[in-house]
Structure formats: C-alpha cells, structure tokens
C-alpha cells in the first residue's frame, strides 16, 4: 500500500513530475552518452597508440629508447624470436623492424622523418601499415629494394606522387652518412595526420642495405590477442630474455597517453558529479515544494500516529521511485544513442587538427563500460536519495499543530 500511495503522490502534480523526470533523464542520458564518448575517445587513443608502430609490447636493445639510433640494434634476432614463440599465447603476432631517424628530401622539400624498415608480410596486423592503408599505388613486397611508402599528408606537402623519387639520409652502422634514392610505391593514410607526415616505410632488406646492417633489427613489436595480458607476458619475457634487451608494455612506451588515461576516470567522475549537482538542486527544490504543499497532510499523518521515520521513509520512497523511473528512461535513451553512434561513429574530421593534437581519432566510436553505467546510476540514485533526505527530514519535523493549521 505504501508503494501505491507513493506512486499516486508522485502523479498528484503531473507537470512537476514530468519536469523533474525530464531533468533526471537528461542528466543520466548525458552521463551515459558523454561517458561513452569519452571512453570511445580513450579506446581510439589507445588503438592509435598501439597501432602506430607501438604494439602491446616492444623489445629493444638496451639503450635504444634513450638514443634511438642504428648502433643500438638487436643482433640475435633469431634467438629472441625463438624465445618469443615459446612464451606468446596463440593468436599473438609480432614483427621486427629497423627504425631510424632520417631526412627525406625531394626537389622541393626536405623534412625529418622516421624511416621504418618493415617485413612486408609480417607487418600488417601488427601495426596500421599494410595493403589496406595504401590509398594510391601499391604496398611493398619482400625483396623490393628501392620502393618506399609515404603518407598522404607528406605527399601533399612534398607535392609528389607515386612513381616519383624521394631521397632518404641517415647515419649508418659505421657512423657515416648513408643516403639512398627510393621510388614512391604507394601513399598510405593513417588515423592521424602526424603519422602520415612523420613515417616512411621501406622493406627491411633495403633499410639494412642502406644502413649497412648485416643482421638484426631495432625493435620487435608484439600484438597480443584482444590486447590482453601484456603485463604478465612482459614479465615472462623479461625472465626469459637476456638483460641486454629491454622489454616494455605500451603503457611504458607511451607515458603521456598512460597518464592521460589515468586521469580519464577522475575527469569523468567529476563530470558526473557536476551534472548531479545541477540535478540535485532540482531534486531538492521539487521535493521541498511537494513537501510544503502537503504540509497539512504530514501534520495529519503525525496526528494519526505516524512516527517521524515513517514519514521520512515515505518521502524517500517517492523520490526513489522518481529516480528509478528517470534513470531507467535515461539509461535506455543513453544506450540507444550509444548503440546508434557506435555504428555510425562521430566524425571529427572538421576538427581533425585540434583532435589530433590530443591524440584522438578522426572518427570516435562511443563505447560503454559497465563500471561507468553503474557509477552514473549509483551517483544519481544514491546521491538523489541523500539530497531528498533534507525535505524528508523537514516533513518529519513539522509539529502536527503547526502543520494542521498550515493553509
């Protein structure tokens, strides 16, 4: 009967209830939607970070990260690969690369780039580069000793196209200047323009030839199934691989991204709180209005013998019902919005320069995390009940005589 009474009380003033519900629905919807969008950005940033040649785990020769030059190469590539094969779970992929800083030049321009010598067959699936990323021309093939892939943005900047020549200069293993002319085989696109500007890809054999590197590679990049278990596998690799090598997870390789992600949860929960504070004032105000409107009735209930805590309970029950209805509808709307946008994505191409600065993808696909949904609902329902306590206690504290004489 208490639930029935609470339900009827809620609908005494339908307009007020609808306004309150609308505020709650918008509040919870915005929490879920913005939470999903922020998580989508986060996932996009992680995916960009991992696929832009980082991988889940990387192995280098000791000292390479401090000075990424060709002299810090891994000589015993076969031995490491043998160890990796024993440790990595089924479904993992890895590739080795030769990676050095270089200068790219043509007749019009020159710029600093990262030259990456890749294994054309093993690279796709480990990073973004592969046949699918090539928008003009074709992808590299093993044994191709003068082909190069450059990014779309770099091609525009250099005013060049496939079939044209580009010169790369770098330091070889003997600390001499090495340079080599390459023919643009293909132009690739990447999620971020900076990747298109700063990376050029050649085959590892041509890189080796240019840098006079007989064997070995600069790095091994590993992708784990579903990007899971990196810490445990890193630990296992560290036990198995000699100390002359360094093994890092993507979190260690991308420290700025990692700290940004750590702040993400905090930002989101602050955002939830901000929304709730705005909503909370509405809840208190509306509940207080409803309580004052029914002051005489509370006086009657007390006169009849209703104890104060039962009055508090009845007011809280009404708030709880409203909160549950509001959050339920808000959740449904939030889920539908996220579902729709997770198919179409949110296109930030017009903001790509700014978005890229923050490491964001051009298209964001919102993602729902159960913990965010739970948090949003707990914040709204939990804190909603807490702020409803004030009007509830107020109702319980009316003396019957003052309440009954209230007009």
């Amino acid at each position, binding site marked *: 009967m208490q639930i029935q009474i609470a339900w009827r009380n809620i609908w005494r003033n339908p307009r007020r209830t609808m306004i309150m519900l609308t505020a709650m629905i918008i509040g919870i919807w915005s929490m879920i939607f913005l939470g999903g969008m922020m998580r989508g950005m986060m996932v996009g940033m992680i995916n960009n970070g991992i696929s832009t040649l980082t991988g889940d785990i990387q192995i280098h020769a000791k000292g390479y990260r401090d000075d990424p030059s060709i002299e810090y190469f891994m000589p015993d590539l076969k031995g490491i690969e043998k160890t990796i094969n024993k440790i990595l779970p089924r479904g993992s992929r890895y590739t080795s690369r030769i990676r050095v800083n270089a200068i790219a030049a043509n007749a019009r321009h020159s710029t600093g780039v990262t030259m990456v010598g890749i294994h054309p067959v093993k690279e796709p699936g480990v990073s973004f580069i592969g046949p699918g990323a090539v928008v003009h021309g074709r992808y590299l093939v093993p044994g191709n000793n003068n082909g190069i892939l450059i990014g779309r943005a770099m091609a525009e900047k250099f005013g060049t196209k496939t079939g044209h020549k580009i010169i790369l200069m770098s330091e070889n293993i003997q600390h001499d200047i090495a340079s080599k002319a390459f023919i643009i085989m293909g132009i690739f696109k990447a999620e971020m323009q900076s990747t298109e500007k700063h990376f050029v890809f050649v085959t590892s054999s041509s890189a080796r030839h240019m840098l006079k590197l007989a064997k070995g590679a600069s790095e091994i990049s590993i992708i784990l199934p579903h990007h899971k278990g990196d810490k445990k596998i890193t630990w296992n690799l560290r036990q198995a691989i000699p100390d002359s090598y360094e093994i890092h997870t993507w979190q260690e390789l991308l420290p700025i991204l990692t700290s940004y992600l750590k702040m993400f949860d905090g930002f989101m929960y602050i955002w939830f709180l901000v929304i709730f504070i705005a909503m909370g004032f509405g809840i208190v105000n509306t509940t207080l209005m409803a309580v004052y409107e029914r002051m005489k*009735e509370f006086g*009657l209930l007390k006169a009849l013998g209703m104890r104060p805590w039962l009055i508090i309970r009845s007011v809280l029950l009404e708030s709880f019902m409203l909160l549950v209805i509001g959050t339920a509808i808000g959740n449904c709307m939030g889920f539908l919005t996220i579902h729709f946008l997770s198919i179409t994505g949110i296109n930030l191409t017009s903001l790509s320069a700014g978005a890229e600065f923050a490491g964001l993808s051009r298209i964001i696909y919102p993602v729902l995390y159960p913990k965010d949904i739970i948090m949003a609902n707990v914040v709204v329902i939990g804190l909603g009940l807490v702020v409803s306590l004030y009007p509830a206690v107020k109702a319980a504290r009316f003396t019957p005589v003052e309440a009954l004489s209230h007009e």
Partner: protein
Amino acid sequence: MHRNCVECRDIIKTYHQGKICVHALNGVSLSIEQGEFVALAGPSGSGKTSLLNIIGGLDKADSGSVIVTGKSFENLSDSKLAKLRLNNIGFVFQSYNLIPVLSALENVEYVMLLQGVPAEERYERSIQILNDTGLEDKYNSRPAELSGGQQQRVAVARAIVSNPMLVLADEPTANLDSETGMGLLEIMKKMNRLKKVTFLFSTHDNMVMDFADRLVLMKDGEIVGDKNKV
C-alpha cells in the same frame, strides 16, 4: 466505579505571537469518564482547540498534567506520544483532512496499516465501519468525489476503526449544513453507544451542544461551566 479516560490538571498554555503573549488556557482541569459523550463549547478564542490539542498529545502544555487512557503525557517522547495517539486516540477535524490520493476505504484502512493490522482484517473492518457510517456505496470514491458530509463520515470512520478509547473532534459539524451535521452526530452517538468510545468535541453550535450528554463551557481559557445532562 468508572475509570477516567481523560484527566487534566491545572493546564496552562500560552502562545507567543511576536511580542504578544496569548494565554490560551489558564489552569484548566477536566476529568472525563470512559464512554462519555462530551461537548466542549465556547466562543472562538476560548481555548477549546488548544485544550483538545493538548489532550490529543498534538501540543504540549506549559504546565499541568495530562493523563489520557491511564497514561501520563509527562516525559513522553514524540515517538511514544505518536504511538499512544495511534492506539488510543482518534481525531476528527473541522476540515475533514482526508488523504486526497486515497479512496474512502483506503483512508479508513490507513490507520490500521500504521498499527500493523493484517491486510485482510484491515479490509473487513474498514468495510464494516463504512457500512455503519452509511457509506456502503462510496468505498472506492476519492475525497474529491464525496460531499462534505460524506467526507466527515469517512473521517469519523477513520477515527473509530482502530478501536480507540477516545475520539477528539474539533468542530466536526462546522462545515456541514444542519441536517448533515445532525446525521453525523447521530453516527458519532451510535459509535459511542456501540463501542463505548469516549467522544470529546469542540463546538459553538447550539444543536451540537443540545445533542451532547455533557456540556463543558469555556471562556477566556477557563472552564466556566460543566453540565451533565444525562
């Protein structure tokens, strides 16, 4: 020997309205036996409602003692007073004070819900009391769908259904026409006779005063007359 249902001694109550002190009750003493049907009469401002509020435990006296149904109000917490009202005292108000979202039946049931009476018994007793008060066709009507007389009968049914020893009614017929008011008084009298419930009601209506078995007259916060007509 009759046991007193209400025993008030030297009740003093003063209200403060800003800088003005209003002496509502100036040392009122009153005893009412179980089963009496008493009218508390007097002009407006004579202290009738103040006395009813104090006897009903809705307000506290500045000094004096109140014993209702054998229980002293002295040192009773709000919660214990609420429990005492719930189980021993019924209230009928001038402006009916029914809960607008509940039907007549639910309004009557509500007090028993607070008492923890099982649902089936609540329903049976409510139906019975509504039949006794002539509301057999109004079980499911909300207060807004009832006339003033019908609403006041629901209020009387609500006051009686929990089997209180005392019913306090503050000018129960003031908002009713004389015929409806007389009908209500007859119902109250019937309940008084049937259930031996003590009725104490305030009024300044001569018809109501004539109807009471005992008439207590008040003026300026004091009892100026006490006439037993039976």
